[in-house]
């Protein structure tokens, strides 16, 4: 417990002459939640994609410690191993569930996809697992055969979440998972995320511009301004005693 699971050092990426992410260092422990906050265009999502190994950084490196305790450099990992990690050890939850859900594949089909990717073949078992997960996140299991397009935004987001969790990942990366939902739906989804984090001991990295989300879920916060981390600390320290002018402004804007 509480061993490091992900480390980034001197991470940087440029889009032409624009420094989208510059010199980012971070470390995440097993079961820990890191929130990346900052305004639109500050490089939050770019940083997330670098941490997930979806983009190659121009500078620095990301290392991940897998289940067997081996450190892997994500920048030199070959594509096949990266995909294997993405299927077995990581989850990725996007802001727009619709972009990841296919209208012609049933809810159960989405949940089963990752299981089948890992070799599950027994249709009845897969279906049963899918329904168990639906019940666990307060979705109606009898809707397992319906198209996701018939679900509400909050339910689609739950579906996207459990389609990731079904193969027991150790690290889940989330990009604004509650943005665009009604406040009450958002609250329920956040409570659910909080509960799952605790129950499953998940390490999570969550990109958000909502300080309430960060305060609720995160242990650790990174504050980004124009591609740089201007402040990093435990969540209540960053919000109760912000050091950087931008963070102070951010905190006083909410309360």
């Amino acid at each position, binding site marked *: 417990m509480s061993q490091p699971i992900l480390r980034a050092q001197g991470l940087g990426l440029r889009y032409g002459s624009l420094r989208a992410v510059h010199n980012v260092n971070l470390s995440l422990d097993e079961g820990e939640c890191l929130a990346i906050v900052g305004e639109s265009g500050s490089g939050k999502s770019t940083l997330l994609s670098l941490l997930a190994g979806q983009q190659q950084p121009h500078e620095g490196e990301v290392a991940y410690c897998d289940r067997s305790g081996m450190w892997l450099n994500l920048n030199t990992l070959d594509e096949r191993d990266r995909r294997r990690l993405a299927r077995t050890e990581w989850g990725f939850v996007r802001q727009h569930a619709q972009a990841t859900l296919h209208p012609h594949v049933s809810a159960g089909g989405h949940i089963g996809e990752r299981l089948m990717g890992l070799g599950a073949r027994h249709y009845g078992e897969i279906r049963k697992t899918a329904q168990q997960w639906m019940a666990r996140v307060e979705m109606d299991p009898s809707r397992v055969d319906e198209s996701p397009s018939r679900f509400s935004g909050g339910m689609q987001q739950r579906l996207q979440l459990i389609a990731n969790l079904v193969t027991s990942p150790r690290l889940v990366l989330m990009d604004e998972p509650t943005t665009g939902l009604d406040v009450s739906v958002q609250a329920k989804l956040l409570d659910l995320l909080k509960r799952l984090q605790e129950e499953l001991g998940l390490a999570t990295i969550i990109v958000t511009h909502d300080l309430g989300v960060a305060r*609720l879920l995160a242990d650790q916060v990174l504050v980004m301004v124009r591609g740089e981390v201007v402040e990093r600390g*435990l969540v209540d320290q960053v919000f*109760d*005693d912000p*050091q950087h002018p931008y963070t*102070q402004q951010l905190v006083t804007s909410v309360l």
Partner: protein
Amino acid sequence: MNPVLELAPLNKQFTLHTQGGRTLEVLQGIELQVSAGECLSLQSPSGSGKSTILRCITGHYLPGPGSHVLLRPRALAHRGLDGALIDLAQANLHTLRLARQFHIAYVSQFLRVIPRVSTLSLVMQPMLREGLAPDQAEPLASSLLERLHLPSALWLLAPKTFSGGEQQRVNIAIALAACLVRPRELILLDEPTASLDQANRDVVTALLKDLRDAGAAMIGAFHDHDTHERLATRTQEVH
């Protein structure tokens, strides 16, 4: 005996960037020590930095330049810190998090929790994190709430609508819940009895006294004289 916690010293200033960059010097050169079984009572008028001292120790506030916040943790098998003296003012986030999770209990002045979770669950959570099963945590959490005279009719409600005194006792229960599973070596108390009547002050003081006598080192800011009299083994002026 080696102190559990030592400030050698603690400085703290706040720079208010949104208010013209004004700097407030709140604490300068505060030095103190506290050992196991002791309760150090911080004495000073309101607004002179007692809460700030406590929050700098927990890391809710960042200790200022030149500060040394030395914690001598008990070594724990498999988790927590390894027993070496650490300077919380210089520690990395990993160490800070472990110190807070396994070695320091902090009773804050006000309850701040998710408004949708029941009181009983809130008190059980730290016990579950300690590794208790739900059917072990529930009776333990219930007996703690009972001891703090919180009516059982309230246990399944979220504490948001409770009275000030009830909220304060819920806050104490949450902050100390983990200590009942495994003692913490340092307990920080920020006005733990401020909004309690005499009877409830008595039950809270008795609980804290038990934890102190079991060997916890305590630092407290107590406004009411009675609590101070019953808990404090030593007093320190802060200015």
